[in-house]
């Protein structure tokens, strides 16, 4: 077994194709995911900007956009159904094809073997397969904009009957089918990835790397992978049944007597609520699959720039585990007003609010990690601090929504949109940026520009609040989500004027991301050379070359003697003591 493993490696490492395209090296695969996420982020971000244009200027015409989307923007005017395709595809792409890719698949693949002291993932071939499965998925998603009827338009949640009946909305034709197929490919790929993560973390840790010496990044990736493996099958089952309802005449989600398109449909006896249960059984854990790794990266970046250990490592690990377990039994908080049994509503409400306890504990640990430290405000640290701030606001917003009573008013309003953008949009994006500035030298052997990085940070932070803090208040005023315009109701009049602030902020945010892209590609070529350990950090990846060679370490895999947060150890020769420093040279904390 072992010999075969080596041979595969040395074989493929040779040619260009084997090295960069069909590579089985976890670092290359991680970077492939990362770059794919970047491309998909451009698409999904562009869709968001188009939505914002429509919401702030509902009566304008956009002849230029007509060239790109001749059907959806006929005469330069956005059609309502096209707006719905934009919402749906923006949400789907951002959640699954941007944040999941960059954070979980990108950083996960890149960092797991490096941080636990392994040569590669447990199943390198499966890893490559997992990447190449999502390539057609991305293409299908993008292609769906150009098929008849346009892209899927039933929201990223794809609730039937809207998503099940072809003529319920134009996007429910081919667009929805392609959406389902692409999601199926995504799930297959994510499952392969999850298996790899769990097996690698459990079996490939180097000597001395006990579970309680794992960096928190690894802990969060581990928990995220397990959650994904447990939760995604529910969506697989739901997607299979939806495809059968759509194309083969079954009635899982479609009740009797639907009257759509001036005719009664032949379906019988199905229950639309079943889809919602299955979808959210995945959907809620999925937000933790995205959120937790962002917190993990942040918790690993902070100590490098406070020069002290994180506060409450054990408490954090415990809280992460509690959150993971609870996240599997609270999906009903998305269904308080769905027609579900109201007693279940009480149960889900109490359960959901329980999650605030471990979440608040992590919040405290994040802030307390600054206490007594020597805070260095580099770009990665600024973004990490941004994560803390956004996590706080997003989490507090959740208290309104987890409470069934206030959710009666706030459900499906812009308050929800504001809340989840803070959590799965903000915490995750800022986490990705912090991680990129921090690990870029390890990935590419060069530093990113600090000056551009800081501009990127300040613009992103300010415009982020401009966009999404504002949306909370639109929601309090009653604005429903997924609305093509807010001009039809007089109770929404106060909302119309706020839209402009949000839209301008979104332009600023987009501009800031252009700076990031420039920085990224400029630094790739021209950044100053990075040495092995530019941040004087303690974790294992910093003992490898920048970038690490195939197999990660020349010579033997390092052995670990201590936990990953050994900063400012009294009597140690430096203010950081790498995990590889033997006890003889410096005292061991944990």
């Amino acid at each position: 077994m072992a010999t075969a493993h080596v041979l595969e490696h040395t074989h493929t490492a040779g040619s260009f194709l084997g090295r960069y395209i069909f590579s089985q090296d976890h670092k290359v695969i991680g970077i492939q995911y990362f770059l794919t996420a970047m491309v998909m982020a451009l698409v999904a971000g562009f869709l968001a900007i188009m939505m914002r244009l429509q919401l702030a200027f509902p009566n304008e015409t956009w002849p230029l956009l007509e060239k790109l989307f001749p059907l959806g923007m006929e005469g330069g005017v956005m059609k309502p159904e096209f707006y719905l395709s934009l919402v749906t595809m923006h949400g789907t792409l951002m959640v699954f094809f941007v944040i999941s890719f960059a954070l979980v698949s990108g950083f996960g693949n890149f960092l797991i073997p490096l941080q636990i002291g392994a040569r590669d993932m447990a199943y390198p071939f499966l890893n490559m397969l997992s990447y190449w499965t999502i390539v057609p998925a991305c293409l299908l998603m993008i292609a769906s904009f150009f098929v008849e009827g346009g892209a899927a338009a039933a929201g990223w949640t794809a609730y039937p009957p809207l998503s099940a009946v072809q003529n319920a909305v134009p996007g429910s034709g081919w667009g929805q089918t392609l959406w389902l197929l692409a999601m199926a490919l995504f799930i297959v790929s994510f499952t392969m990835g999850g298996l790899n993560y769990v097996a690698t973390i459990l079996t490939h840790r180097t000597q001395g790397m006990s579970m309680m010496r794992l960096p928190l990044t690894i802990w969060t990736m581990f928990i995220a992978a397990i959650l994904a493996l447990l939760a995604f099958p529910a969506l697989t089952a739901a997607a299979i049944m939806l495809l059968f309802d759509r194309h083969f005449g079954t009635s899982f989600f479609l009740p009797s007597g639907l009257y759509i398109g001036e005719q009664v449909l032949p379906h019988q006896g199905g229950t639309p609520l079943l889809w919602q249960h299955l979808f959210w059984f995945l959907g809620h854990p999925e937000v933790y699959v995205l959120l937790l790794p962002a917190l993990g990266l942040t918790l690993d970046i902070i100590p490098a720039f406070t020069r002290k250990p994180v506060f409450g490592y054990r408490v954090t690990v415990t809280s992460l585990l509690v959150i993971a377990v609870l996240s599997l039994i609270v999906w009903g908080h998305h269904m308080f007003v769905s027609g579900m049994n109201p007693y279940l509503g009480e149960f889900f409400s109490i359960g959901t609010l329980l999650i605030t306890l471990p979440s608040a504990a992590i919040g405290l640990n994040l802030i307390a990690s600054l206490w007594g430290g020597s805070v260095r405000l580099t770009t990665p640290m600024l973004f990490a601090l941004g994560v803390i701030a956004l996590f706080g606001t997003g989490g507090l917003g959740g208290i309104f929504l987890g409470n069934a009573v206030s959710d009666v008013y706030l459900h499906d309003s812009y308050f929800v949109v504001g809340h989840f953008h803070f959590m799965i949009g903000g915490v995750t994006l800022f986490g990705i940026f912090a991680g990129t500035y921090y690990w870029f030298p390890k990935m590419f052997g060069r530093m990113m520009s600090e000056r551009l990085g800081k501009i990127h940070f300040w613009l992103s932070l300010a415009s982020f609040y401009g966009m999404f803090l504002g949306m909370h208040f639109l929601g309090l005023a009653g604005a429903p989500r997924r609305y093509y315009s807010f001009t039809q109701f007089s109770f929404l009049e106060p909302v119309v004027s706020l839209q402009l602030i949000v839209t301008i902020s979104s332009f600023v945010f987009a501009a800031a991301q252009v700076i990031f892209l420039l920085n990224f590609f400029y630094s790739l070529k021209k950044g100053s050379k990075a040495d092995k350990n530019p941040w004087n950090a303690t974790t294992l990846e910093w003992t490898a070359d920048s970038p690490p060679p195939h197999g990660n370490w020349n010579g033997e895999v390092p052995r670990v003697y201590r936990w990953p947060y050994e900063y400012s150890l009294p009597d140690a020769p430096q203010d950081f003591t790498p995990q590889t420093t033997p006890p003889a040279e410096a005292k061991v904390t944990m």
Partner: protein
Amino acid sequence: MNQHSAVRRDLGGLEFSREQAAFRSTIGIWMFLTTVTMLFAAFTSSYIIRRASADWQEIVPPPILWLNTLVLIGSSSSLVLAQRGLRRSHAVSFRTYLVLSCLLGIGFLIGQIVCWVQLSRQGIFLPTNPHSSFFYILTGLHGLHLLGGVMALVYGTMKTWSADSVRMDHLFRVSSIYWHFMAGLWLYILFVLFVL
């Protein structure tokens, strides 16, 4: 250049003990079976919810289904015997039972197709009623999973004549865990469809 040779020396040397590699494949297969379990759990809860509707009608499965069940149990038992042969380093009985197990597995799949054909001859199709929809989907999904298992077993059987024994051991252990699980899953599906 030297880099790669360094890796090779290293990996070939201290990286993996046999136990570690075995541990890795065991973890992998059980994690995968966990997701399979969750998939069928999702279908089970959907089944229970859907059954509460007024239009529910039970279908009567063609008798060949029970024959298929026996075939699959036979295949699983035969694999146990092959395992025993392997443990006793009894090459002939190992191979014979292994081949028998593969054949019975393929037999089951063919039997399932016959079962579907018979059912559709009775006029019971996928959309006929919710019970038939679940019947086709659950047995179809199980069949797909089993097909993967058959391919692994056949591949493993062919390898018994060539690959080294350590590698063989792994492949065999992992695919037999999977195979027994599939047999168990089959009984579970029958339980859900016709007893529950």
